[in-house]
């Protein structure tokens, strides 16, 4: 207590107070910000749709068709909703660069505004899942234990127990979820991009999806036992026991066996 009292009188006190004030302001902003963001996201103006259509015709229509009706091997986008577009475009999966087993995530080609315009255009073609609100994807409000139960039944077989990713057949894969944003995780569940099944609100309710996000986000603080070795299980553990364990011990054995000079 005494120490605290001394510190209050110190010359750093004003700086500390200022920092505290900034922190509170920042915290308040963070708490209030979601509502404003939701407001901008949900309101798509007619000009957005117009601009989105232009972007679509320039960048997407070659494969998906002038009216997004799709063609042989290319899905129709009528009715896929804004969520699907936002997921595919904001993760860089669309537009596709080359044909392959699956479209990989890469640096997005469009900025947030253009993505929103594209989403608005596609959403205007037919009713589909909308972009989730910040409330829906806020992992801190989820139940991590329930998220674990849902994740391991519905997700872990492809994405691995903690979301490290895994292989599918024929060169396809379930990507790692370490860097995926909560919004993209939610949208992926909702729309079932590429090989992924669709987890509509009857399979996983909105709250359950948030629980899953909460679990995935909890995995990002690593493992209590130390380096997680990629979190891919016994194969990497076996590799490391040979490299580190046998490596170090063979080194020691050579030292012990060597004649000293």
């Amino acid at each position, binding site marked *: 207590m005494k120490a605290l009292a001394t510190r209050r009188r110190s010359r750093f006190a004003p700086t500390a107070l200022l920092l505290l004030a900034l922190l509170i302001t920042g915290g308040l902003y963070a708490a209030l910000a979601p509502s404003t963001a939701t407001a901008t996201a949900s309101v798509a103006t007619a000009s957005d749709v117009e601009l989105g259509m232009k972007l679509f015709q320039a960048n997407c229509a070659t494969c998906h068709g002038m009216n997004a009706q799709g063609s042989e091997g290319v899905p129709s986008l009528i009715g896929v909703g804004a969520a699907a577009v936002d997921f595919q475009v904001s993760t860089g999966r669309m537009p596709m660069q080359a044909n392959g087993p699956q479209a990989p995530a890469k640096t997005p080609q469009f900025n947030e505004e253009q993505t929103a315009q594209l989403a608005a255009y596609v959403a205007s073609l037919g009713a589909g899942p909308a972009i989730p609100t910040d409330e829906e994807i806020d992992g801190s409000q989820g139940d991590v234990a329930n998220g674990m*139960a849902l994740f391991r*039944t*519905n997700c872990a*077989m*492809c994405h691995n127990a903690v979301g490290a990713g*895994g292989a*599918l*057949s*024929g060169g*396809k894969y*379930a990507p790692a979820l370490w860097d995926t944003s909560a919004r993209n995780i939610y949208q992926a569940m909702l729309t*079932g991009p*590429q*090989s*992924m*099944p*669709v*987890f*509509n609100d*009857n*399979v996983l309710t909105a709250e359950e999806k948030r629980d899953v996000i909460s679990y995935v986000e909890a995995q990002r*603080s*690593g*493992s*209590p*036992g*130390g380096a997680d070795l990629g979190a891919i299980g016994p194969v990497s553990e076996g590799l490391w026991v040979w490299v580190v364990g046998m490596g170090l011990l063979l080194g*020691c054995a050579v*030292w*012990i066996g060597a*004649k*000293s*000079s």
Partner: protein
Amino acid sequence: MNQQNPAKGHPSQDLAAPDGQAGVPTHFTDPGHPEHQPRQSDLHPAANKRAERQVVLLFAVSVLGTIGFLVAYFAVPPGETVASMRQSNLLLGLGLFLGMFGIGAAVVHWAKSLMNSEEKAEDRHTLRSSDETRAAAVEMLREGAQDSAIGRRGVLKGAMVSALLLAPLTVVVPLVGNVGEDWDVSKFKSTMWRKGMKLTIDPSGRPIKASDLTIGSVFHVIPEGLEDTEHPLDEKAKAVVLLIRLDPRDLTEAEDRKGWSYDGIVAYSKICTHVGCPVALYEQQTHHLLCPCHQSTFDVADGAKVLFGPAKRPLPQLPIEVDDEGYLIAQSDFTEPVGPSFWERLK
């Protein structure tokens, strides 16, 4: 059999027999043990002293490591967060590492740099006993056998052997008899699915309506009332089902299974027909179902037939229908045993 005489074919190594022709030996001679090379610490007292100091230092590292471990044990609790647990584990582990490794490195360094480094040779003795010893041993056994007169008492011998062979049964029979519980292996052939039983979501137990499925969605399904059974895990191990909705146009159905699906919704056993892993990786575009354990791949659009991998048989299909309220229910149990193959599965 005419084997090569070892002494001829494989010359003994330390003899150099002259071959008589030109006085050239047939074999090289063993040059003997190389001369001992003294170490720095043998030659220079300063180096000797330095090595001793290094050993002391290594022991000191060990002491510090142990103290560090004890400090970490009392002062750094694992706490409630991942970071605090990791910190506790790291500090304890490093303390243990230094505490142990320090001793090891010190002792080895001591042995290498300060203890006498001259190699010594020791003769080996033949392991084989001498002929006299062998003869004496045989004689003793013979005497013993004579004393017991076992050779002449055939009935006694037979009785003893029978008793010794039979006695272990008192342990083996109860062991084998009890560990298998009721031995009713016919349980492998059926699951708890019955006509009218609702399909519910794993693990919440929520019943599923046909309208809940959109094309491309998957439900992991358990039978209604699973938790009320005597051994839920045993039942679940056989009864788990994967419920998938496909575009009915994509679905190829066998003639006798036309009535087993509902509007593109099909239900297949989740237990692999290979060795029983849960087959759960559904790829909605290709309709492939992949087993993560051994990569057997099944075609959900075509009767869950095997496309790739070590499984032979398709996954068993659960016949389903819809009740009056729109809930999905089973028409019956599976029509064949689920899971891995076994000898009498078709009997």
